[in-house]
Structure formats: structure tokens, C-alpha cells
């Protein structure tokens, strides 16, 4: 017993020593600097969200403060209806995974819901069309690959969060899959993989909406998401 505890103590000393050794001060500093940049940016974004909300609230109470601006309002139902005109949208399977042949079809975008910090939640309904995994697969894993292919063909639902950011006269919509569920139980166990692949590939680039208005020189100056609408305010 005493020998065992002595071994444990020595193990602990060695472990502690090695961990101390592993923490290179430069690596630690770099990680802390990255975290600092992320936290600073998130704090500034939070400040900006509160400032924009306060400004819009004041305009709602005293419209004179809005000056000669005008706003276009889009309710979630309107966005869902507009999105329904853009689907089915077909993407090559390789947009999801480098070894995926065939197509992934976005069949519907539903359940649009406004979120704080200029975000929208929505749900993407996807299915695979003639999807095949073209990578080399050891024979013992071939059954799993077939399960995965069948699961993709049967479809999946991905919950997305979309961050809207006004940049000049465009809105960048950067979507992130929060979670994905396959419609068939053969896909159980691959959900995390699908979510990660979507985030790393298909959703890597934002959608860019050009908001310039045909025939006018009006420019968008604020984008706001409230619990009711996405609102774009323009200066004529």
C-alpha cells in the first residue's frame, strides 16, 4: 500500500514536471493573446448591439430622431417565403466533403426565428442525391460507409444560426450549423461529423446580399434584428 502511494506520488511529481515543461511561455502567450482578441471583439460587438438597439428604440419613441431615413422591414415569415423561392438548391457533395460524389440538395429552409445580436435561427432540410463516398475504405468499414450514404440519401435537418453584418451596402450572412440530425437511424453517430463538415466547407463563406436599391442612391446605414423583424435603415 505504502509502495503504491509512493508510486502515485512520484507519478504526480513527474506529471506535474512534464506539464510545466510542456507549457512553453510563447505558446501560452499566443493562446492568451488570441483569446484576448476574441473577447475584445465580442465585447465590442455586444456594445454595438446595445448601442444600435438604444438608437432604434429612441427613434421609435421620437420618430424625428430618425431624420429623413427610411427602413425596410422583413418579418421571419417573409424571409421564409423568400427562401422558399431559392430552393431546391443543389450543391456538389464535395462542397461538404472532399471525397463525396453526387449532390446535396437543400430542399427547404424553415423555422426562421430572430435572435439577439443580429442573428437569425433557421432550419435547413437537406438530402443527398446519388451520394457516394469515393475515398479508400478498409473492408471492415465498408458497411459503415454504406450506412452513411443511405443516411445522407434519406436526408438530414440542420439547425443554423446566421449572423447578419452590414458591410457597406451589403449584408453578409454567415451561417453556422449548431446541430444536425439525420432522418434515418442509420445516420446516428454521424451527426457531429455532418455538422463539422458543413461548418468547415459548405458554410465556410458567407452569403452576400447586395442591398443597393435600383434607381436610387439610398445607402443602408443600419441593420437591426428585433424579435419581430430584420430591419434595414437607409439614408436617401
Amino acid at each position, binding site marked *: 500500500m505504502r509502495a503504491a502511494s509512493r508510486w502515485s506520488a512520484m507519478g504526480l511529481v513527474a506529471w506535474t514536471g512534464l506539464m510545466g515543461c510542456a507549457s512553453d511561455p510563447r505558446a501560452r502567450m499566443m493562446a492568451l493573446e488570441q483569446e*484576448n482578441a476574441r473577447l475584445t471583439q465580442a*465585447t465590442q460587438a455586444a456594445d454595438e448591439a446595445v448601442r444600435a438597439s438604444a438608437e432604434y428604440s429612441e427613434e421609435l419613441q421620437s420618430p424625428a430622431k430618425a431624420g429623413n431615413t427610411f427602413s425596410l422591414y422583413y418579418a421571419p415569415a417573409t424571409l421564409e417565403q423568400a427562401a422558399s423561392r431559392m430552393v431546391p438548391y443543389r450543391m456538389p457533395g464535395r462542397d461538404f466533403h472532399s471525397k463525396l460524389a453526387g449532390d446535396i440538395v437543400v430542399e427547404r429552409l424553415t423555422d426562421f426565428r430572430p435572435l*439577439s445580436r443580429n442573428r437569425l435561427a433557421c432550419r435547413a432540410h437537406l438530402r443527398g442525391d446519388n451520394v457516394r463516398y469515393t475515398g479508400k475504405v478498409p473492408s471492415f468499414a465498408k458497411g459503415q460507409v454504406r450506412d452513411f450514404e443511405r443516411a445522407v440519401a434519406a436526408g438530414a435537418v440542420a439547425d443554423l444560426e446566421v449572423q447578419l453584418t452590414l458591410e457597406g451596402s451589403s449584408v453578409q450572412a454567415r451561417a453556422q450549423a449548431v446541430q444536425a440530425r439525420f432522418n434515418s437511424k442509420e445516420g446516428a453517430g454521424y451527426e457531429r461529423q455532418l455538422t463539422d463538415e458543413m461548418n468547415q466547407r459548405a458554410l465556410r463563406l458567407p452569403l452576400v446580399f447586395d442591398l443597393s436599391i435600383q434607381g436610387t442612391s439610398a445607402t443602408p446605414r443600419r441593420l437591426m434584428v428585433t424579435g419581430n423583424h430584420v430591419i434595414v435603415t437607409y439614408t436617401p
Partner: protein
Amino acid sequence: MNISSRGGLAALCVLLATVGCASRSAGRNPNMASDASMEKRADALEERNQQLREELRRKEAEVEQSFAAVTRAEDAAQLGSLGCAGATPSASPARGLPRSGAVHAKLALQRQSYRVTTSFTPARTVGTWKVSQGTCQVASP
């Protein structure tokens, strides 16, 4: 091997690991004082990050409150359920609103592009605002 010789062996392993580690560190950084100063700066930054994390938590709560407040303010101004619409303060001249049928949003995807237009109804006064209700249309050129 008895217990004390195993203990001696373990101690030797720890010693070797520590010496190896120290010599690697020294090899990487001949100036140990600079490492110590960096550790000090890292400690300070870690403390700052902790403060920022707490500040961010507070601000995120503030953001949620202001999101709820602005939604209530919109409802109170009778602008809570506009569908697709254009609005201007009723005291200002309605300038710049897109004409019915004018393209006011464009989206170019890799394989398809879309244009959004709206058919507006004549403006009506809602509280202190002039609102033109619309019907959004999406077309692919």
C-alpha cells in the same frame, strides 16, 4: 527488483525528464530572464482575460435585455408585425423608398443568382409612422 530500487529508478526518470526539459528550454531560449518576463506578462494577460470574460457575461445579459426592450418598443409603436414593408417617420417627406418592382436586394450564389423586388401599397399612417405594406418577390434572372 525491490521497492527501494524501483523508487530510485523512478526518481532517476523524473530527474532525467526534468533535466531534459530544462535543457530543451534552455536550447529554445538562451535568455531565461526573457522567459520569466514573458510568464509575468502572460499572467497579467490571463488576469485581464478573466476580467474580460466577466465583462462579456454582463454585456451579453445587457444585449438580451436590450433585444427584448427594442422588440417591446417596436410593438408599442405599432410596428410589431409588418411582414414586408417600408416605413418612414410620418413627419418626414417619404424619400428614397424603393418603387414597386425596383430591385432592392440581390444574392449571387455559385450556381444561381436572385433578385428581390417588392410591390408596395400606398402609404398609410400607423401611429407616428407612414407604412407601405408590401409583397416581396424573389426572381431568378
